[in-house]
């Protein structure tokens, strides 16, 4: 785990990591988000950062720090489904006891088949809830027939 990090410099204590998607990036400790438990299937990794994709892009990258080759494309589910409001979500947010409701960021993970972006799906069943203030989050599982793990975002043909 630690081998992916260079020695933090004394003044800034930023970490320098070499990622698959972004090359070498500098990470400040206050940017790190701890996912506990980790994402299902990646339970051994806990430290992530959010990276904006581009200006005016609805996407963010959830870049893993414990495995720099690992990154997920995520987005605000309300961009896809304005009425997305699974009941479990409210309960989990309450359990996480944020200082303010505005600190809570809900994201859904997108599956983009390589070379076939049109077939992108959103995992509405496994949203990631992050307390941006405390920098902690988790993936929750929503068992609600309205919310598929493979919600087709774009129509079959444009």
């Amino acid at each position, binding site marked *: 785990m630690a081998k992916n990090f260079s020695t933090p410099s004394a003044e800034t204590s930023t970490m320098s990591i070499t990622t698959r*998607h972004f090359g070498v990036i500098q990470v400040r400790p206050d940017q790190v988000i701890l996912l*506990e*438990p980790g*994402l*299902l*299937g*990646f339970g051994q990794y806990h430290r992530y950062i959010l990276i904006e*994709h*581009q200006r*005016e*892009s*609805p*996407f963010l*990258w959830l870049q893993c720090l414990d495995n720099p080759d*690992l*990154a*997920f*494309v995520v987005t605000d589910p309300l961009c896809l489904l304005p009425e997305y409001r699974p009941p479990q979500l409210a309960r989990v947010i309450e*359990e996480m006891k944020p200082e303010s409701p505005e600190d809570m960021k809900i994201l859904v*993970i*997108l*599956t*983009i*088949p*390589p*070379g*076939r*972006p049109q077939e*992108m799906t959103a*995992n509405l*069943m*496994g949203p990631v809830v992050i307390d941006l203030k405390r920098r902690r989050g988790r*993936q929750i*599982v929503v*068992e609600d027939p309205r919310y598929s*793990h*493979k919600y087709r975002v*774009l129509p079959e043909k*444009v």
Partner: protein
Amino acid sequence: MLILTRKIGEGLFIGDDIRITILEVRGKQIRLGIEAPANVVVLREEIYRRIQEENLQAAEARGVDVTQLAKLWKRE
């Protein structure tokens, strides 16, 4: 695999803080009570596998595709 036989009302511990109790047996169905810390994920196997598999597929996303999607998004 460890195999144990339990009666209704009996339970077992996994480590110090996960407790499973057999609540009811109805024909082929068994109701289990599970007490576990909040940081332990407890899911039905099929649900666990579905989300896990989706996360594994999502990890394959490529930057070029995301950029293409962002362009598409802006146009719509």
